[in-house]
């Protein structure tokens, strides 16, 4: 097991290297000039040239690349071209809210979607199944910001149960964090509930047709035990895969929700950086996202062996 984890961690090195090269080149190939944004509309060509020189943008590409990689290897993500602060502290300040919202979203999604999927499979082709599947279609098709604004309208403006926007860190005041985070989390969760419920249902339907389910019933086992002890663990692998992918997607895909609910997370940081062509920040964000994908996938793969004893690394 340890050997397997080591192997997987080593395997991330080439992955991250390829991502780094790709991101670097892609950014340099897209039009737009950070110097022009930094200098403002009134800048003379001469001023622009000086700014470019100072930022190192006039060096050949390979020198720029190796300078960046050299800094990376020392754990330095670079300095923002625009705000002139270190990228790691910019991300550090913003990642907390994003991670907290993402975790809460995934928890809500799993807590609702898995039982929904299990019951839909158990009551296959009845109105319960139909209801869950209808919700799932709805969850997929309604855009995130529409759901967000509807929730705000109902719970914040009409019912006044929760504040409209904003973010408080859970370390500061957990209750406050919760009432503010519940709406963005629910908003984000809709699509994941739909996805996970669907996957749970499909996986459970397959497992419920297996011989050992019949064996369990032949032993006189109660239905809830049949479903949650015998069937769900066997159905777990595809569900875990979806949850893992979902979590990684959440981290990188919170842009819209963070805008709607005014949360100071990395989603907004990324949008601002892209608009300003702030290369070091964008590069760091993409590397970070790739890193999160790799780690989450590794965790998911390891968790398989926890649910299924036949999987051993």
């Amino acid at each position, binding site marked *: 097991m340890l*050997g397997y984890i080591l*192997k997987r961690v080593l395997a991330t090195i080439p992955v991250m290297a390829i991502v780094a090269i790709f991101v670097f080149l892609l950014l340099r190939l897209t039009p737009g000039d950070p110097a022009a944004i930094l200098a403002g509309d009134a800048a003379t060509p001469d001023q622009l040239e000086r700014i470019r020189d100072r930022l190192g943008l006039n060096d050949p590409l390979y020198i720029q690349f190796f300078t960046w990689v050299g800094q990376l290897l020392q754990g330095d993500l670079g300095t923002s071209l625009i705000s002139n602060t270190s990228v790691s502290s910019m991300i550090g300040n913003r990642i907390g809210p994003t991670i907290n919202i993402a975790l809460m979203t995934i928890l809500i999604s799993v807590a609702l979607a898995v039982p929904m999927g299990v019951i839909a499979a158990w009551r296959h*082709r009845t109105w319960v199944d139909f209801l869950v599947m209808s919700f799932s279609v709805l969850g997929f098709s309604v855009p995130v910001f529409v759901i967000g604004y509807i929730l705000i309208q109902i719970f914040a403006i009409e019912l006044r149960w929760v504040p409209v926007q904003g973010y408080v860190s859970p370390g500061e005041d957990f209750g406050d964090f919760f009432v503010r985070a519940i709406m963005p989390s629910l908003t984000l969760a809709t699509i994941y509930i739909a996805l996970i419920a669907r996957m749970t249902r499909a996986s459970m339907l397959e497992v419920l047709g*297996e*011989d*050992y389910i*019949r*064996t*369990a*019933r*032949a*032993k*006189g*086992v*109660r239905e809830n*035990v049949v479903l949650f*002890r*015998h069937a769900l*663990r*066997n159905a777990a692998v595809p569900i875990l895969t979806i949850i893992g992918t979902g979590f990684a997607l959440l981290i990188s895909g919170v842009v819209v929700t963070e805008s709607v609910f005014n949360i100071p997370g990395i989603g907004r940081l990324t949008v601002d950086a892209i608009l300003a062509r702030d290369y070091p920040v964008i590069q760091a964000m993409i590397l970070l996202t790739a890193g999160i994908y790799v780690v989450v996938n590794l965790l998911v793969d390891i968790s398989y062996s926890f*649910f*299924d*004893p*036949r999987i051993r690394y």
Partner: protein
Amino acid sequence: MQFKSKDFSEAERVLKIRKLKVGLTGRPDAAPVLNEIDLDIRAGETHCLVGESGSGKSVTSLAVMGLLPKDALEVQGGLIDLEGFDITAATHAQMRELRAQRIAMIFQEPMTALNPVLRVGEQIEEVLAMHTDLSGSEAKARVLDIMDQVHLPDVERIYRAFPHQLSGGQRQRIMIAMALVLDPDLLIADEPTTALDVTTQLQILKLIAEMQERHGTAVLFITHDMGVVAEIADTVSVMQKGRIVERAPIRQLLTDPKEAYTRKLLTAVPSLGPRMRRDGDGAKPVLEVAGLDMTYGGTGIFRKSKAVHAVQDAHFSIAPGRTLGIVGESGSGKSTVARCIMRLIDPTGGEITVSGKEISTLGRRALQPHRKSLQIVFQDPYRSLNPRWTVARSLCEGPINFGVSKAEAMKTAAELMELVELPRDALDRYPHQFSGGQRQRIAIARAVAMKPDLLVADEAVSALDVSVQAQVLDLLADVQKRFGVALLFITHDLRVAAQICDEVLVMQKGKVVEAGPADEVLLHPGHDYTRSLIEAAPGREWDFANFRALTGAPLTQGATP
């Protein structure tokens, strides 16, 4: 032959089924799946339910367990009485109480019938948790005790094992332990040994008999295998198309069957006696295999994995028009040999010479022209034909790949339909529109369409009912006579091997332990393993086709013309 048949009229009646009718859910007017079945089982009795696939044997057992798939089948009339309690009227909760305590069931496939993610000890203990108030340690002691009773070794270790870590026989012992831990009055066994090797089958049959003796359990034993029936039954009910057509004590049924259908079933049971010896004409062999080796694992980047020798140093050859059988139990390496010869996998050593050309090391491209002369028929005709292709397309694909024109390929396909006795319009249909036997005919036609020199049949009749089995074997013999093709026949079933093989090769754990003419090997086995295979064949002392015991040397019967 020693039959069990005792008189059970004094014993207490455990199960009474009267006029049981099971049909499609919500469609009482459609043809019933079970049509007014009557059945009685008394304490200590073994009642065998025999019949071909689709006759309703398993539906009967599921109806008794209350486990009919409710959106497909339902009880539409009649009575299932378990010691005075009518199961057809039971609630879900009552039914749950009955299961494991009064009636228990074991299934065909012990691998899939056990939950793969739970420890086997926990799975047995779950029965106690559901139905008793035993404390944790009492329950565990009880589980270890029943595991001991079913002769599992090292019960503490096996208690903690997962199903995939056990052998097929051990898994079935776990199933039996699970079924009997609460000492039920009725045990339903649905083809419990069909998926097992013959030697394991013998042990499991003995175990069921021993447990039955000890606990006085009534056993409803479902099987398609007349050999097994002869070994274990007190009473037999023969089922056909949802009806019980004949019921009799075992000796009476085997010696004097009343119904035509019963006679048909019995005469279809292949004899263990080998076919008449056919002398070869000394032609040059089509296939020569020398020193064939197949080793899995043994290499690795980080650490060496354990090497598994699937096949070790196998030698044999087949001449045109001859049939070589490879027999052995699961894991003996017989299918690996077939896959090496077909070059579906790459052997790790040895030579495979087909029509004078050595092919064991040829690359993909160089191998291509030789593929045509090697064709295979697989075990499961439900999965070996592409379900989205018409029969014609499956039959024509191979020849067209080798440059035959479409029109010509279609013409050959039509002729082949005649050969395998299917109507011509079968060409435009899809595999699911055919029965298992018909599909296997199509699979054979597909292989023959390539005009191969060697036809490999990998357990090609094992999934079929005996009567269908006989027809498919006849077809293979016919194909062989007509085209002079050499046949490599891989099977675990000695009866089948005896019917069709000229030479037999016995494999055990990757090694060839005995080889020679079929009558030599089957009548005078030289190796202990071959002998144990023959001795484990159920009902081997009975000549089913002639309704009498085999006299004298039990195996010489079929050899005389």
